[in-house]
């Protein structure tokens, strides 16, 4: 038993240097499609099963715009003759249209997060579980996970908002002290993802509580989740939900 600290030390430091340093380890993010100027915009857009790609025409030039809030990482636009370029970044957190300003400085080194699962498939759950694992070590950033809404500054919700979780989400939100922020994680939380709106799912967190930050991705990798949380306290530059060619 007493050997455990030693076994831990043996592995050495595995924690990423990000956000202070760069991070480009292979496989740390699946990446995502980039907007592109192309003559095949219509074809490319038609091949996306979720209408996340749109053919647009600006100043006489055609291209494909990406709406990340609908992208489910099906990878169909990644291969083949008309493949789009894919970025290898993970700075995906984007303010919602109704976003409140970033939390003030006293939260930047002490932020408490309450995670609520509202129908997330195991992938989002698994990624969120890794944010406080050694490779990512959330605690070093002064962000902590709490199990009670009374302590929480941020409500982090994943999944397409199932019917039976509506009440739990609004109750949790109501029980949180002000100031508070809400982050919807994964494409499901934004518009319902592949599940959409149905008899069983609200298809979007905004229908239940006000949302400040969207984190697209299916699933967003751990660093993207951390990017989202840091965006809420203004420690990193947020991204946008859409990209124009």
């Amino acid at each position, binding site marked *: 038993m007493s*050997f455990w600290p030693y076994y831990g030390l043996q*592995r050495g430091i595995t924690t990423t240097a990000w956000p202070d340093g760069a991070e480009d380890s292979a496989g740390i993010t699946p990446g995502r499609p980039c907007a592109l100027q192309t003559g095949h915009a219509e074809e490319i857009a038609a091949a996306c099963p979720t209408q996340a790609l749109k053919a647009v025409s600006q100043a006489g030039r055609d291209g494909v715009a990406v709406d990340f809030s609908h992208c489910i990482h099906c990878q169909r636009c990644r291969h083949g003759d008309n493949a789009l370029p894919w970025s290898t970044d993970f700075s995906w957190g984007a303010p919602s249209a109704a976003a409140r300003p970033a939390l003030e400085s006293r939260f930047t080194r002490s932020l408490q997060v309450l995670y609520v699962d509202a129908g997330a*498939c195991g992938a989002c759950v698994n990624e969120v579980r890794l944010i406080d*694992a050694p490779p990512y070590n959330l605690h070093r950033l002064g962000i902590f996970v709490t199990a009670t809404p009374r302590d929480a500054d941020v409500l982090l919700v994943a999944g397409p908002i199932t019917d*039976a979780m509506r009440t739990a989400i609004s109750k949790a939100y109501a029980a949180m002290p002000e100031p508070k922020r809400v982050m919807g994680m994964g494409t499901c939380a934004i518009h319902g993802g592949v*599940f959409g709106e149905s*008899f069983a799912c*609200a298809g979007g967190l905004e229908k239940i509580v006000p949302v400040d930050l969207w984190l697209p991705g299916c699933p967003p990798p751990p660093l993207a989740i951390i990017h989202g949380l840091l965006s809420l306290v203004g420690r990193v530059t947020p991204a946008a939900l859409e990209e124009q060619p």
Partner: protein
Amino acid sequence: MSIPKTLQEWLQSIPNLQMQKRSEQWLQLLCSAEQLPALTRHLMEEEEAEFATLLVEESADALSVHYLFYLPATGNLIELKVEAPAGTELPAISDTVHAADWHEREAWDLYGLRFSGHPFLGDFVLHDDDWPEGLDPMRRSFDGKHRPDLHGSGADWAPPRLLQEEGAMVFPVGPVWGDFNESGLWLLETPGEQIRYLHTRLFYKYRGVEKIAEGRTVDQGLLLAERFAGAAAFAHAWAYCQALEQIAACQIPTRAQQLRIVFAELERIRHHAANIAEIAGSTALSVAKALAQGIVEDLLRLSARLCGHRYFFGVLTPGGLREDLDEGKIKLLRQTLPELDQRMQQLEKHLEGSSSFLDRIEEMGTLSNELARIYGVVGPIARASGRSIDLRRHLPYGQYVFLSPDVPVEQEGDGYARLRIFFAESRISVKIILDLLPFMAEGPVQSPCPIQEGHALSWVEAPSGATFHWLRCTGDGTITRLRLGTPGFRNWHAFERAIEGAAFQDFPIILATWGLSIAENDR
């Protein structure tokens, strides 16, 4: 293999039983409601059949109910099909096939199909306090696109209380609880310290996947199959693709068959490593948890490097795989896997040397062999309770026909047995992959899989156990029925039995040693 002779003869002796051979392997019996109990009893008691799943399909004026069994000894599928005209009841089979208990409750909730003799119908998939009485969402007449206007009473729902003792209380856990847990509600009935009964209430995550799949294209169905239980995305996508391939009689290129095994086994290792991390975490052994999580993370990165996605989304396509693995990637796999395997083995050794850790999982959350059989549990849970069943061996699909992987079995059925199974299976999966790599066939990884009208039953041994998908589609590729028979749904059923008698503080530990996915159960 063909149907056992004794069974054939017995079946032929039954009057008015229509038999139809769907394939060499699959025998369909059209029986009446009255014949159902005797048939199931015979299958279970004389033929040692395993219950696969139960599914309902709706036609113009009747519901047809398919009871699917398989014979592990011969690899045959037996389907009992019963017609239930509107308003009729069927005899519950759950008194002989206890594994069908939850299936019958589900069919009552979603189709309004009543099973006579079933002791406990109601408040299951649809929560009574939420959902209007008498509305059956899986029926064709129900519009699944919108939330019904009518809603439940809103009154607080109260479970049946079994423990009638002075000072007895019900301690609720969930639906929002702990740091990063899936949503579900557990009501622990206790006189103080010991949990006497557990009442599990799931389906807080019910997304109605089977309903919303209807009317979508088979292509969109694949996206759903991948995403309703993302921790086993590849397994479910594979089962789904197999169904389409069966309908189209499509032959998969050998290389694609082999690569599917590589990915499926990688997913199994990652799934088990994640469970091991949770087990270590539940006992507050944070270094062990961290080491296991490190392995999980490295496996996820490996997956992303191989196929672009950490959870294998978008890798499968009916007819094969979307992309091949080039030499460089095969080499990466060959180099990375042994090191990860070694880290797993080391972790296992360290854990086995931690007596205070073992104290907390030994004789904890025990499911006896008898109960495992009665509940028909599947996957690692079954194998930790002495049931040697694995579809890769007993109903082999794809290249598993040639591989017949080892199936580790433990007898104790406790938390420690399950931990050992998770480790042993990961080790075997590593070996399967490394043994396969030198023999990779050359050639394409995709063959055409035209869309055709039809239906099929397909199966895979997902990381958490036997999974059965039933798909019916029209000639233009519209899904008319998708049944997802998941291991989560099977195993959660038995979980309550492993809790009774445990101490309060052991609940999260037992939960972790079972490692069950709620997303997979709720669908």
